[in-house]
């Protein structure tokens, strides 16, 4: 490495040192509370559905459906980003974060038209999530299938 490159590396290391970072513990607490609350809400929906005599899979689907609906509405009223500022990962990790990542570009890009605006951009973040989720589970499913096939 020549001197010039060394100097640049030094600078980058120094930048890392002096760049202020969020207080991790405070952010983790925010994420814990927000994420926990959203999951708790999910549990309320699950229990309510089960009390209606629905089987666990159907109850799970209702739970996803209602949480997604709630998140999309909050996104529409521009409230989800406000919660996210406090909640961080607590709003990103639950399925509501996925719904926010679908609704946000749909609303933002409506001005660029139905096809190239909403139609394409709605998958900006959801697309990769669905793609890699499907690919990974397909690959793992293939292993599961192969084992079953070999066992006969």
């Amino acid at each position, binding site marked *: 490495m020549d001197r010039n490159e060394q100097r640049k590396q030094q600078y980058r290391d120094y930048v890392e040192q002096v760049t202020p970072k969020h207080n991790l513990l405070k952010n983790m607490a925010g994420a814990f*509370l927000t994420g926990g609350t959203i999951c708790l809400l999910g549990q309320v929906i699950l229990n309510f559905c089960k009390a209606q005599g629905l089987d666990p899979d159907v109850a799970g689907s209702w739970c996803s459906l209602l949480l997604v609906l709630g998140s999309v509405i909050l*996104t529409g009223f521009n409230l989800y980003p406000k919660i996210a500022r406090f909640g961080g990962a607590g709003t990103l990790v639950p399925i509501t974060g996925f719904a926010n990542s679908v609704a946000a570009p749909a609303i933002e890009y409506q001005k660029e038209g139905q096809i190239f605006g909403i139609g394409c951009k709605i998958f900006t973040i959801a697309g990769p999530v669905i793609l890699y989720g499907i690919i990974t589970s397909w690959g793992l*499913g293939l292993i599961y299938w192969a084992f079953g096939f070999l066992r006969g």
Partner: protein
Amino acid sequence: MEYIHAFWVGGLICALVQILLDRTKLMPGRVMVLLVCSGAVLGFLGIYEPLKAFAGAGAGVPLLGFGNTLYQGIRKAVDEEGFLGLFTGGFTASAAGISAALIFSYLASLVFQPKMKE
């Protein structure tokens, strides 16, 4: 008890992911992909279903649960339909979540206007 477990397990998963967000340069999109893929792997390893039995929505609502759902769907479909199940199970199991997100978001784009961040 169910509620408490859902709260702390779900909260804990989020708090751990917060470390990832704050201490690495990973963008939120990458973190979401990572979670879904990890969930599928945890499901494959047989770890996630017991966790779900314990924590309920605390394990089901985070995106890890979405990945697990995809894998469980494929597994179930493979059991029932064989090879073809690899191609049907994932979307079948996750249909409600994905469709809801797409449909509600589309409707939202008809109703809501972009707004300035404050």
